[in-house]
């Protein structure tokens, strides 16, 4: 029950006790104070007051200690590692209330942060999809038409003009390809149209064709139903990982593995490249972006070396328990 005593009353009680003790000492000891205070008495009174002060200080310090620890814990809360909460095993009323209020606030902040990050991501995906469609449906189609017309023109012009038309043809075709790549990077059409597995196969083929890395998708048959957000996170993380493999890893082959593990779907992108070397896991916005995406669907992401050399990105997406 002592814990329920509030901080305020503790301070009053301690101060009261010290004052009463000082008064008792004064009353019961042979110390007297003359009408005109002499030097010896003054010294004694000062020493007495100092002793009372020190005792008071020592006792109050103990009382305020939980508050200091609370401050210290508060400073240590890391927004990138949600789920941290203050725990004060021995605390007085106000401090206990303060820390539970603080924990409640953390709950609300984390929830709000998750919600707003989800909203931001959904808005971003929506926008990406819109831009991808517009790029593909407008500029891409116009360029395709131009390229076809140029193909026809190339057969009609004389040899003096042909090299110029050929150059134009190549530019138009490059434009078609570029628009297609940008649109595909923005929003994987295969994911919307044919689902995650086809999209991962398409992605692997595309990165392999472009980079020369041999990429083998191994996608399990017995995957549980995933919702749209989960699929998108898995796709985006596979995409980011394969892009990293193609760009930085100096790998000759990579595996994209999607399988079921207990109550989760696990994506693994593993390469046989030179590993992460001196780079830390968090370097690069790509990694941070992957981690934040994973966080949003409650998934966990680990990036580490594999033997004998290479890197593995491992994403664990928990699936709702079977009803």
């Amino acid at each position, binding site marked *: 029950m002592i814990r329920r005593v509030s901080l305020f009353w503790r301070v009053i009680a301690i101060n009261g006790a010290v004052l009463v003790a000082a008064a008792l000492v004064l009353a019961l000891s042979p110390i007297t104070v003359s009408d005109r205070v002499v030097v010896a008495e003054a010294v004694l009174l000062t020493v007495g007051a100092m002793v009372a002060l020190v005792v008071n200080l020592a006792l109050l310090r103990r009382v305020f200690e939980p508050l200091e620890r609370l401050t210290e814990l508060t400073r240590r809360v890391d927004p990138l590692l949600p789920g941290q909460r203050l725990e004060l095993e021995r605390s007085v009323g106000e401090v206990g209330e303060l820390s539970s209020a603080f924990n409640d606030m953390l709950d609300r902040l984390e929830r709000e942060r998750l919600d707003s990050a989800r909203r931001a991501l959904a808005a971003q995906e929506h926008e990406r999809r819109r831009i991808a469609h517009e790029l*593909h*449906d407008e500029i*891409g*189609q*116009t360029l*395709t*038409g*131009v*390229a*076809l*017309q140029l*193909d*026809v023109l190339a*057969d*009609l012009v004389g040899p003096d003009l042909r090299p110029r038309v050929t150059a134009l*043809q190549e530019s138009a*075709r490059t434009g*078609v*390809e570029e628009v*297609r790549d940008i*649109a*595909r990077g923005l929003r994987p*059409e*295969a994911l*919307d*149209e*044919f*689902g995650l*597995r*086809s*999209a991962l*196969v*398409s992605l692997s*083929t*595309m990165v392999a064709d472009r980079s020369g890395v041999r990429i*083998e*998708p191994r*996608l399990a*048959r017995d995957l549980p139903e995933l919702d749209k957000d989960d699929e998108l996170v898995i796709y985006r993380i596979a995409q980011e990982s394969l892009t990293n493999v193609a760009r930085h890893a100096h790998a000759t082959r990579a595996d994209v593995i999607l399988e079921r593990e207990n109550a989760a779907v696990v994506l693994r992108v593993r390469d046989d490249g030179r590993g992460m070397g001196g780079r830390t896991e968090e370097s690069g916005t790509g990694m941070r972006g992957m981690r934040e995406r994973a966080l949003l669907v409650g998934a966990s992401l680990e990036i580490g070396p594999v033997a004998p050399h290479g890197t593995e990105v491992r994403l664990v997406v928990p699936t709702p328990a079977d009803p």
Partner: protein
Amino acid sequence: MTRSTIQNDLIRVAMVDDHAAVRLGLEAAISSRPGLVSVGVVDGPEALAPLLYRARPDVVILDYRLPRTNGLVLCRRVKAQPLHPAVLLYSAYADQALVVPALLAGADGLVHKGGPARELLDAIRVVAGGGRWLPPLRPDLLRDAGTALDPEDLPVLGMLSEGTPRPEIAATLRLDAAELDRRIGRMLASLRPER
């Protein structure tokens, strides 16, 4: 007897594409090649049926992405008609993922929209002559499609990928044409979770 033999070996080509620049390019490409003639270009699925009836094309080029529908749906509709023309799907992306669905929808060819006109014109000739113009089916894609499908339907996919004609597939599996068509519809649906 195919229609091209009736029409003095002139291959009659019709097109559905919702983009004006592509329609212009296609018409220019087709009329540049001797032996091919463009018999109609329309911008949407609604205008296709009258065009088929009126112009009797040998080959129909279908854009994959169309307003309110897509080339696969349209392809099935065209192929369901008696005396149907050959169908070329003309797609700008998702090419790898599109091979199996194109096969199921009964397309005779799948041509990448970014490719040179020559490729499209060659494909038109081939499918008009009864051949197929599909990219090689990657084993992993076939395997992947296999996992998404009902095991009972796998023989259908296998025979389609070998180019077995539908009546023959139906006969082998002791199905009537309507039942085979219904199963192919179901297979397409399970490969396309969105629709």
